[in-house]
């Protein structure tokens, strides 16, 4: 663990990503305690106020400006990050657990189980993930829980495919044969021998998937299929602000920057994790 953080400190890109991720998480958690205006309070007198850097520390001011209804953009971005990060994290965990388990099962049992699972993966791959998400969200409705499930649905197969490949390779490793030779049961082999040895790739995929899911979540709300108003969401802010692009550039610029920075930091961290733990994964994506 100590060497892990030492290596992280040495890698500028990894450290940058890690710190930025921490900042975003802190921002999401601390949003209600920062003395910001409510993200949903509109004000007709303060519509489309331009951002002013000097007003950063004066109470009641709008450092990133306000939108067409006079709502504070900084506050909306911070509160929006809570929904986005929660949904994305939920989808990553759900997709990761399901995908990893299925990957281990397919790789371990091979044969029919494996073939059926891989055929399902192929079918789903033929359907662009965005279309799948769009259809399903439209069908079941855009509640937070539904979004988590839908986004996890677009995600599990990446784990399943890579973990299956890893397990197929591990299976031939002699320590797995040795576990069979001492009479270890299936459960023991999966939990004690296979799972710990695929945790690294799982962690790496999870980070990279987190970034992808944040973008997809934003895209869904951009199309009006994300969390419903009045809850603030980055994608919806973009979609709404787009109309005022000629008069108020800030409404559409800052939420996009927030997405970019979040995804960038998560990607940096993920790349570094991959290079640190398993450089071989680079081309396996």
């Amino acid at each position: 663990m100590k060497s892990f953080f030492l290596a992280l400190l040495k890698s500028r890109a990894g450290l940058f990503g890690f710190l930025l991720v921490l900042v975003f998480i802190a921002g999401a958690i601390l949003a209600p305690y920062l003395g910001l205006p409510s993200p949903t309070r509109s004000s007709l007198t303060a519509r489309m106020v331009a951002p002013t850097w000097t007003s950063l520390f004066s109470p009641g001011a709008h450092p990133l400006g306000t939108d067409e209804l006079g709502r504070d953009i900084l506050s909306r971005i911070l509160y929006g990050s809570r929904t986005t990060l929660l949904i994305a994290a939920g989808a990553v965990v759900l997709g990761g657990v399901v995908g990893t388990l299925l990957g281990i099962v397919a790789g371990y049992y091979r044969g029919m189980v494996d073939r059926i699972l891989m055929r399902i993966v192929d079918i789903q791959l033929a359907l662009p993930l965005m279309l799948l998400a769009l259809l399903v969200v439209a069908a079941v409705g855009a509640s937070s829980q539904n979004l988590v499930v839908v986004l996890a649905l677009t995600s599990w197969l990446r784990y399943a495919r890579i973990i299956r490949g890893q397990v197929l390779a591990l299976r031939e490793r002699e320590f797995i044969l040795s576990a069979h030779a001492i009479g270890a049961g299936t459960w023991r082999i999966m939990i004690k021998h296979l799972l710990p040895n695929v945790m690294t790739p799982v962690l790496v995929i999870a980070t990279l998937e987190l970034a992808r899911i944040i973008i997809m979540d934003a895209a869904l709300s951009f199309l009006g299929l994300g969390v419903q108003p009045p809850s603030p969401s980055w994608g919806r802010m973009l979609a709404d602000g787009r109309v005022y692009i000629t008069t108020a550039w800030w409404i559409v610029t800052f939420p996009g920057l927030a997405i970019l920075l979040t995804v960038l930091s998560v990607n940096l961290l993920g790349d570094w994790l991959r290079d640190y733990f398993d450089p071989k994964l680079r081309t396996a994506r």
Partner: protein
Amino acid sequence: MTMEKTPQKPLVIADRLCKTYGGGRGFLAGSTPALKAVDNVSFEIYPGETLGLVGESGSGKSTTGRVLLQLEEPTSGDIIFKGQNLTGLSKPLLKPFRRDMQIIFQDPYSSLNPRMTVGEFVGEPLVVHGQGGNRSERNDRVAALFRRVGLDPSFMTRYPHEFSGGQRQRVCIARGIALDPALIVADEPITALDVSIQAQIVNLFQDLQDELGLTYLFIAHDLSMIRYLCHRVAVMLRGRIVEIGPCEAIFENPQHPYTQALLSAIPVPDPKIERERRPIAFDVNANPTPADAVLKPVGERHFVLG
């Protein structure tokens, strides 16, 4: 050794073992050509004996070892261990027999679980079979196993990457003997080790046999080590045993042309002999073994396929 003269019951009998890969029709995969990795292989090993199994890559020697331990199911044939037929036994029924037979592999780097401490790894068979009592008693037993294979018990809490090849192989051996097995299949256990380490491991194998009365199936392609370690030798070629017999008979009086070719190919660490050595060529494709060939006796306990 007196044991070779007293008639005893074999510890394990392999009876007409076959293992075929592929050949089936897969879903969307078309048919794959069948590969007979092990083809009608029969032998027996007596208690306390070391049987050497030699052959080149692809001869089926490793598969034979794995099939013998039921790590892979034979396509046909029987394995009789201590008088009990093991083939077709379900996993739970097989489990008690697992205590009695163990395997040690070639590559000490892939035979340890990189995410398990070596102590846990050596103690795992005890856990699986509910032996060794509580945690601290088990720890003591693992420590004793470490000492027995020449490792410092203080290493128990370390992970495999901290060990050299020879030390890893000692860890594997400790795990192999944890349950006091009767039979150990050693699948090229010294091939991947540095030359200066090989003798250490060979000696360890011999010491353990003397102390614990172990029976070995020793798989190798290094014939000089086989000669040094084994009572009897079986030579495999393309899935079949082409010659089997006492070590001396095989090395002094090889009958099958392939055995002769194999023996003539061993490099000898002596320039005078080595410069004069001319290997005998043997073209496998030009001399296919007839399918109906059987092992015929040519000397005392010495058989040749023909």
